[in-house]
């Protein structure tokens, strides 16, 4: 079989004495939509931070398209085609919405630290950015500072920046947190579209979203994966219900509440 997009081998992370990630082995195949769920404090975000290079692993390795990226810096990893969003919105508040998106693609478009060419001259950038604005439905907010967008809009922009670079591995941490049903539904559609033909890894507590989007689900509990499987099987999995979903009917309630 082909090399998976992301492969974790016995990944570990501890802060001081406390072990947060206790040996995670995971393979995320190219082009799959993979969700990671688990109780609060299980280590989902930490796992994201490890893969995306925000934290350095205390042990084990991370492979991106078969290349060992453990211990690399965030920007190095990003340059290798992995892009992530954040659980708490993380944008460039004083720059215009348009510029936020453009910043997301400058590097991958190959302009790097260039100080000899003018961004306004770079048609390709402008057009591509505007396409993405359309995509995330912020075209009409183009020139206002991102800081004044509403919460939901900022979440959308968050995703916009994340995908701007055209990375083929995208990681989203609770993309629909704090959104209303309707907003959530739009977000799900958006995510579905932008992750076409790409590898998507996401953390989400909204079971509706998870079961809706994910091809595969991993359950993380106290820093260990207790299951990785298809949505249906996860739903049925006793251990998972124990640790996370609670009793079946509760789960139903949550899902459509």
């Amino acid at each position, binding site marked *: 079989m082909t090399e998976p997009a992301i492969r974790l081998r016995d990944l570990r992370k501890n802060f001081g004495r406390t072990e947060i990630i206790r040996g995670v082995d995971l393979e995320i195949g190219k082009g799959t939509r993979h969700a990671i769920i688990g*109780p*609060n*404090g299980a280590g989902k975000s930490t796992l994201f931070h490890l893969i995306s290079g925000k934290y350095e692993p205390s042990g084990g390795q991370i492979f991106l398209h078969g290349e060992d990226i453990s211990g690399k810096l965030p920007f190095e990893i990003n340059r290798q085609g992995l892009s992530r969003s954040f659980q708490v919105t993380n944008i460039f508040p004083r720059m215009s919405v348009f510029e936020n998106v453009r910043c997301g693609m400058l590097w991958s478009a190959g302009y790097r630290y260039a100080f000899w060419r003018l961004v306004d001259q770079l048609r390709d950038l402008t057009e591509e950015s505007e396409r993405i604005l359309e995509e995330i439905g912020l075209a009409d907010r183009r020139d206002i500072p991102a800081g004044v967008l509403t919460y939901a809009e900022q979440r959308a922009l968050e995703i916009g920046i994340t995908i701007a670079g055209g990375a083929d591995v995208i990681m989203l941490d609770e993309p629909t*947190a704090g959104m209303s*049903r309707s907003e959530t539904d739009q977000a799900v559609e958006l995510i579905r579209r932008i992750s076409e033909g790409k590898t998507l890894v996401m953390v989400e*507590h909204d079971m509706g979203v998870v079961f809706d989007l994910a091809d595969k689900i991993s359950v993380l509990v106290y820093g260990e994966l207790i299951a990785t499987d298809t949505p249906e099987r996860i739903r049925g999995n006793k251990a998972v219900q124990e*640790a996370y*979903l609670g009793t079946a009917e509760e789960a139903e*309630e949550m899902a459509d509440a």
Partner: protein
Amino acid sequence: MLEVRDLHAYYGKSHILQGVNFEIGDGEIVSLLGRNGVGRSTTAKAIMGDVPPNGSIVFKGEEIAGLKPHQIAQRGLGYVPENRDIFPALTARQNLLLGQKKAGKSGRWSMEDMFDLFPNLRERADVPGGVLSGGEQQMLTMCRTLMGDPDLVIVDEPTEGLAPRVVTQVGTLLEAIAARGISILLVEQKLAIALSISHRVYVMGHGRIVYEGTPDELRANEQIRREWLEV
């Protein structure tokens, strides 16, 4: 306990609250439901004096509209903000300590109670709040307010970002709180939990109260739910 009459509030020019009316009795759990952006949090902030209110807010027989936030809090009103506003630089324990109004003086709730309620917090008691997990932060904000021994707690979307399991746990907690004679104003949009625990519910729309009733009545009332709530 709390009586809100014709409450108005503005953000700059935009008129967010346009005459809100409701009341909460002793030891009562009341939910304030509604779509995003209808002004539920604003209502909470207006009561706390964080957003300048006009109108009348009577708490334990005293008019508190126009008082400063800290004065309102001192009178026994507790507020659990939405989106996890913990103090990132301080440890979990310090966060809780700041909850107390007078140093060392804890009332109905002690630090230990909190840790018993959420064991996670005990483990993480000495790590900076900023690095706590989203869920842990959510729990922390709740506990921090309880440490101040309020008579009425306004809880703004406490279940946001919590694992389904914990959500039910929070529900139980709220009931436990009420059991100790503390009134609760629950600002929610997740119907399930709100309906399961509250005695009465208000539905908000466009800065006004558009419905009042018991959970069962609301469950029964298809039309209101379709028009003002999302299902």
